[in-house]
């Protein structure tokens, strides 16, 4: 083997929407090894959550990720509600499901667009994002926001959807469905896209089990897992839909799963709107007096896979421990199987194919010396250093 060159993807790179560092060790165009470095995005969300009340935490976890900004509140709501064992009203269940599925559509459309952009196919990028607009309009009609919807609360949802609005939503949904179908046709029937994506970044079912990958990444490799069906929450067991899987495991299969999932989501949304229109009256929020001491576990199927939230309560008004595991955390490391041995062009699209969300993933950071690889600080050390620094500054201020 000849001399290896390091090709950096990141920390700032057009391929990544967020700062993240993939080091590609290349021999010519072939990737022989790959290393992933994180730590650019750490915000200490879990610690912040411990200082907020149970109600406030919703708006913090919503901001973990701008794209799947409902899946985190969804999982958190499931976790908190499991402590006292609250059963939320039926109407709230349907509204939650509706919001969750709308988010899936908009996230998948966003991914299709970005994948097109990474392939240099900017027309698909622009079209997908244009067709995402009606979905965002629907969000605005329901929640008042295009993103970060602030819709969830303990025991239900914060805003109702009346029948008049449901009728309007039906219309926008029809329009969106037409366009999504058009896009699906354009992407699935393009021979050059087939040539570019088939057989690239293939993950076998064994790879998925080894890394514990979830969501569309797993389903594209024939691993039939979906939290919505396996452990139904909200109204997913009340509506009629099916889990989309593909067998190939390559990037094209992942695109196929995401594209077809959008149609399933539209089906679910139709049923939810239908229910809301037929049953115009009903509570949207159960009364919750307090969260007793105990631990709550909740998960939800985000557009990228399973989001897991663990909440520990001591009976006070805020969680004493909040642990989050985002889907990208297990999906991103699969690049070790999908990229190594391929070319740089394939590595770029294969890393993007798991729809990585880096800000979701960063839960802990440690500093290493980049020459020796020795650990310098961990989170506790960094906090201690910060406190020491604060003390010094305080002392200097007092001297003056």
């Amino acid at each position, binding site marked *: 083997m000849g001399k290896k060159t*390091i*090709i950096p993807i990141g920390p700032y790179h057009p391929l990544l929407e967020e700062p993240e560092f993939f080091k590609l060790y290349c021999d010519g165009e072939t990737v022989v090894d790959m290393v992933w470095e994180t730590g650019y995005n750490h915000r200490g969300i879990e610690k912040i959550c411990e200082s907020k009340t149970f109600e406030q935490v919703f708006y913090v976890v919503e901001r973990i990720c701008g794209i799947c900004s409902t899946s985190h509140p969804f999982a958190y709501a499931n976790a908190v509600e499991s402590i006292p064992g609250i059963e939320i009203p039926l109407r709230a269940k349907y509204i939650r499901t509706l919001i969750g599925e709308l988010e899936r559509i908009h996230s998948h459309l966003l991914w299709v667009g970005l994948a097109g*952009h990474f392939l*240099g196919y900017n027309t698909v990028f622009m079209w997908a994002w244009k067709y995402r607009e009606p979905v965002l309009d629907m969000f605005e009609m329901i929640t008042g926001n295009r993103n970060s919807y602030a819709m969830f609360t303990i025991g239900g949802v914060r805003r109702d959807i009346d029948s008049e609005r449901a009728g309007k939503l039906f219309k926008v949904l029809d329009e969106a469905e037409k366009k999504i179908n058009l896009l699906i046709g354009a992407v699935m029937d393009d021979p050059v896209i087939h040539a570019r994506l088939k057989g690239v970044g293939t993950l076998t079912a064994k790879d998925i089990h080894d890394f514990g990958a979830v969501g569309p990444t797993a389903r594209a490799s024939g691993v039939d897992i979906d939290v919505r069906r396996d452990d139904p929450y909200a109204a997913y067991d009340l509506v009629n839909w099916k889990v989309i899987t593909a067998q190939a495991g390559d990037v094209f299969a992942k695109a196929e799963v995401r594209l077809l999932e959008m149609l399933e989501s539209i089906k679910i949304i139709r049923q939810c709107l239908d229910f809301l229109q037929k049953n115009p009256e009903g509570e949207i929020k159960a009364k919750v007096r307090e969260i007793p001491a105990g631990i709550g576990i909740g998960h939800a199927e985000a557009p990228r896979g399973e989001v897991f939230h663990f909440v520990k309560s001591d009976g006070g008004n805020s969680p004493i421990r909040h642990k989050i595991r985002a889907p990208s955390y297990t999906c991103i490391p699969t690049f070790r199987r999908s990229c190594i041995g391929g070319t740089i062009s394939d590595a770029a699209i294969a890393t993007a194919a798991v729809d990585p969300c880096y800000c979701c993933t960063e839960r802990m950071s440690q500093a290493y010396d980049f020459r020796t690889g020795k650990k310098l600080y961990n989170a506790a050390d960094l906090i201690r250093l910060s406190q020491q620094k604060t003390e010094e500054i305080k002392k200097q201020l007092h001297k003056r």
Partner: protein
Amino acid sequence: MTKEIFYFLVFPGLLFAGVLGGFLSWFDRKITARVQFRQGPPLFQPLYDFVKLLAKETILPKYGSPLTFLLSPVFALAGATLAAVFILLPVLGIESGFSGDLLVIIYVLNIPSVTYIIGGLASGNPLAAVGSSREIKLILSYELPFLLVLTSIIIKSGMTINLREIIDVQIAQGANIGSLSGIFGFITILMCVQAKLGLVPFDMAEAEGEICDGIMIESSGSVLAIYKLVKYIMFLTLPALICGLFFSGLELSGINILWSILKVLLVVLLITLIRNTNPRVRIKQAMRFFWVWMNLFAVISIILSIIGV
């Protein structure tokens, strides 16, 4: 001597080709924007881009060869302008050119690509090195079908290697695009031009999503401005060459100006549509595409022109 300098610097060289090429690149961007539901840039955007870049600071790469890095855009500009002069003079019918100018054009057209490679390698950036290696592979792929198409045209025009004579033959006997061999040749040369211009699906040397603009990554300020000007000039020169080889040239007199503009715009439109309806292919796929399919098309074109179809 003054005439040659005028040709090189003003018409049809640097100034003319730069301005008109800038307009064509605006046309390309506007059509692209319309295809993508966007508004698109104003008419003078290419000029704004160029002037703004000239005014910006030029950052020299730390781990490279600064002299080579700075000289390569100058050579690229010289090469592109020379190509513009050699192609536009006969194509517009200003001068008849010299015997065998087609061979010179083949060489001169490669100068910008070669300087991109040298400039990329001189910047010392690993991503630029990847881009340069891809550009080299790309040149190796598209050059052979390009030559074969020219051979087909030469056979068709009665073994003349003078661009003006080729055009004159077309004016007398009808444009090359009207024949079966011409259609095969046209498809091949369109793909080669797409690759020469570095546009999708053959933009892997600059692949933004993979190697962040590859060969151009370290260019900034006036270096990038000159590279941009080179691209503008090539955006006029190559479609004009296609017009000369297949659409019986361009004319600058009377109502024929309109026809000439339409011909160039048609070729640019085709190039724009190809780049907007395809994803970028891998370099391996591009090589296979040119070596197998485009060579096959070009050989078919040659055989057809020998038969006389």
